[in-house]
């Protein structure tokens, strides 16, 4: 029950009950979006947003820019890594072969 899953808000079903259709891995489900509607915003403004869904509720908006920033940082780390790489013998589980 604690695992969240990303989905995209496709349409609003009912403002009154905060219900929207959310597409999750190709399947559309009725999901409660009360926690992601902006304080003075309209439900319809959420259509197209990516959200993280837990037990039938959209609990957080997924910020695509932040996701891209994290990935970019990791990519840079990888590149610097290639440049700086030195042979290094360290004890490690499962052993390291051919390094």
């Amino acid at each position, binding site marked *: 029950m604690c695992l969240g899953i990303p989905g995209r808000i496709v349409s609003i079903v009912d403002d009154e009950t905060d219900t929207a259709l959310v597409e999750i891995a190709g399947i559309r489900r009725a999901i*409660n979006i009360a926690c992601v509607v902006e*304080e003075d915003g309209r439900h319809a403004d959420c259509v197209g947003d990516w959200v993280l869904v837990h037990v039938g509720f959209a609990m957080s908006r997924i910020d695509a820019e932040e996701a891209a920033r994290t990935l970019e940082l*990791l990519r840079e780390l990888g590149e610097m*890594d290639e440049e700086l790489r030195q042979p290094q013998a*360290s004890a490690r589980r499962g*052993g390291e072969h051919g390094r």
Partner: protein
Amino acid sequence: MKFVDEFRDPGKARALARRIDALAARNPICRRRPLQLMEVCGGHTHTIFKYGLEQLLPEAIELVHGPGCPVCVLPMGRVDDCVALAEHPNILFTTYGDAMRVPGSRKSLMQARAEGAEVRLVYSPMDALALARDQPDREVVFFALGFETTMPSTALTVLRAEAEGIDNFSVFCNHITIIPTIKAILDSPELTLDGFLGPGHVSMVIGDAPYAFIARHYRKPLVISGFEPLDILQAIWMVMVQLDEGRCEVENQYRRVVPEAGNAAALRAVQRVFRLREFFEWRGLGSIDHSGVRLNEAYARFDAERRYSLPNLRIADPKACQCGEVLKGAIKPRQCKVFGTACTPETPLGSLMVSSEGACAAVYRYGDPAGPPRRDRTEAVDGLASRDAADHPATSQEKPT
């Protein structure tokens, strides 16, 4: 799947693993003893085992699998209460699937159902409310479970029930709170933790401020982490960087989901519907002050504990169980005397063997890096991308009810 696959890239995992190696190699603690990092959340435990992440880490870093699996810390007495409710003639008892096999002192919900009690699996508390709406002559009880992640969904469902005037619906509330629990762990004398991976989905609700005391008072770094393999490796790397630079701070690796302030709408609903209990009993950890919530007076009529009389007994864990020691990181799952013999996922003795987020079930299912079978590191890295997406109930075609 978007926001999932990108965070399983083997190349990036390799780069992170090498950086973690380098930091471990010059960390003074690692020279004396294994550095212990606790992942508080069961979701992290699940990812760590599913992807064999421990095999990507140097031996000098040890992951301690914390108590953040709500199913795993549910005491037997509460399961007995569930069974009693389910066996009540007019009650339709609804629960998340995860809780079905948790052993009570006499039986689990699964066994109760086999013997004729009406127990239904639901994916969401709203599904339970829908059952109450559709069957006004039945009393529907929802077994509410989980940390702050699922508290808002229960709260919003109760508010909905109130708005619609559905009074054949109630909640058996077993929600628990993470902060007092982390504090209890930090205060436990047996412990030698050096840092924490903070629970990403609890944090998207409560924000990062509530963890400040861990850095300030206990001088331990904490990095809020997402749930994909790269998230966890990056968070471990961030903790190692903090230790390397002599910092103890709360940092957020999971920025794409966790806003600094948490979720205001969710917190408002929680504050309206729940209040703190004096204490709550945890399996393996005993009673922890203010670690659980119950329904507020104003919502008493939706509170199954007030509506029905429950056995409400404190039942000691079976003698052979060493769940508490595993939860605190004092022993590894395989070191429990009944692991894999008297206690298996099919016939669990302790609850850590029940949920896929429990350390024992994870070790049993995916193999423990500390025991056989071992995998080659390269193989472990390349395997990241090929593991399938989480088998999540939201994507399962069959209706859980």
